[in-house]
């Protein structure tokens, strides 16, 4: 079990309002930095992820690419995406980007999830799935702008990268970070990682001719706890990253506003008929027996 301090719940799916103990302790927000400009696509992170999380192997098939599989799987949370991008001058840029949960500050999965406690966002920024409470509705899949949660048809539950909350809770770095041979993966506080990322982007702009180098930390989901350094931050789509990831408004509005309101209305249906019975009474087939007259007749108040 994770250390309480390191993993302090901040948001819990299916719960509105503050979580117990929130704000009692201050904690650093953690962050994983992926420098795509120094990633060599060696897949050590993929292996480390599968090994640490004890994932069963699943067969893959050759798909005209070096990419291990077309997309992450319920038992393969960390996938390097290989993209061949053709520059306007005809040269090819072979881009490798480690794809995994972004651990959004404003997680779409959590917003969409109806099951209480199935998705937890810790105060350190980790968004974790608690399969014990997952009901397998897959709304998180549609809530996520990064196509991350994956349904396991055997357990009927949804899985994704935990940012190794089990390791981080014990003060260790995530498995992928530990395995990365080139140091293109870094782990630390969000502030530090942001600083390093911006410095690296500046270096790429100033010394390596990547005029559009920048950091991918989309504010449309409140920033993420996995950030990328990109050669060209103006075009994240070439790395198969959404330019402007968003959470469908319907989830937030529906879940936090209309769901309780309309639910109450439905409840009013129940209360309404009871009230009707008590106040008006039933309508009965006619003719009714004549109303009783005299002292013990009903009193109209």
């Amino acid at each position, binding site marked *: 079990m994770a250390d309480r301090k390191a993993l302090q719940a901040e948001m819990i799916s299916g719960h509105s309002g503050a979580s117990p103990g929130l704000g009692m302790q201050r904690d650093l927000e953690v962050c994983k930095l992926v420098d795509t400009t120094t990633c060599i696509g060696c897949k050590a992170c993929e292996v480390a992820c599968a090994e640490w999380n004890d994932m069963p192997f699943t067969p893959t098939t050759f798909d005209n690419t070096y990419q291990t599989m077309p997309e992450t799987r319920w038992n393969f949370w960390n996938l390097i995406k290989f993209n061949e991008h053709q520059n306007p001058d005809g040269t090819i840029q072979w881009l490798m980007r480690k794809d995994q949960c972004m651990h959004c500050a404003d997680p779409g999965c959590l917003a969409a999830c109806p099951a209480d406690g199935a998705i937890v966002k810790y105060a350190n920024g980790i968004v974790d799935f608690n399969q014990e409470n997952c009901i397998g509705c*897959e709304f998180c899949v549609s809530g996520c702008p990064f196509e991350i949660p994956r349904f396991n048809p055997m357990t009927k539950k949804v899985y994704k990268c935990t940012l190794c909350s089990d390791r981080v809770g014990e003060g260790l770095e995530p498995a992928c970070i530990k395995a990365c041979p080139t140091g293109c993966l870094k782990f630390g506080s969000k502030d530090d990682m942001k600083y390093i990322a911006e410095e690296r982007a500046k270096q790429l702009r100033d010394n390596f001719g990547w005029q559009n180098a920048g950091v991918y930390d989309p504010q449309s989901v409140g920033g993420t706890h996995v950030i990328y350094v990109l050669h060209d931050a103006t075009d994240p789509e070439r790395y198969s990253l959404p330019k402007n990831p968003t959470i469908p408004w319907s*989830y937030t509005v529906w879940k936090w506003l*209309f769901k309780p309101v309309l639910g109450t209305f439905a409840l009013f249906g129940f209360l309404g008929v009871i009230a009707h019975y008590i106040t008006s009474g039933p309508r009965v087939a006619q*003719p009714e027996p004549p109303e009783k007259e005299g002292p013990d007749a009903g009193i109209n108040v």
Partner: protein
Amino acid sequence: MPASTSSSVERFDDKARNAFEHAGKTTVYRGELLRHPVYTRVLHWAVALFFFLALFTGFGIYLPWLFRWFTPFFGGGPLSRVMHPYFGVGFVFCFGLQALNWLKPMIWTAADSRWMRNIKGVVSGEEKMDPPDTGFFNAGQKVQFWEIVGGCVVYLITGVVLWAGARTFGRIPVAVSYVLHDISALIMLGGIFIHIYLSTIGEPGTFQSMIRGAVSEAWAWTFHPAWYKQVTGRDPQQDCEEARRKMNSSTKPPKQS
């Protein structure tokens, strides 16, 4: 007395109805009228069963923190989620048959509009009897019927989207479907309270129409006078007054048709 085709309700599928009549039995005693034949009743309860199964499994998805206690009946949250669409399909299918069965009596008429204008009197109970032109179904029932028809369409479309998921239909359709599906369910949920209330304690004598299939003549002339007139050929008002007279003078059952 065996059910006869003399009922004024024109049914969609006589073949199915006949088959069900053989499988079941509707006894109509003296002073009663055949209200719902076996086929209709079977469909009704099939719809009800699937509705509640879908409702209770749906609760576990809709608000697990409140309704988690439903889920163990279905083998837990994930299995509830797995079964819910099958229940939903059962509900929509059965209701679809019922809708075809009832399509004609559910057609909206000018009388229904008048009924709706007069709804306050009916709800408040000031009007002891429904307006004389109230037919086999009154306008309230028709509203609910058409609401369920509409709801089923919504369920079906959004349900398929949700069932196949964001991986097939994309994130936004799922997100929108999720909301529409819920709203549809909530409206239906509100409706079902009224339906159950009115068919049981709200209007005593109604429930047996879906149990035994027969209703008393008094019930019929009270709540569906036009239908009474149609099937008996008598004037409901007169019969009611006659019954009242008889009740007030002595106790003799109303004459049978």
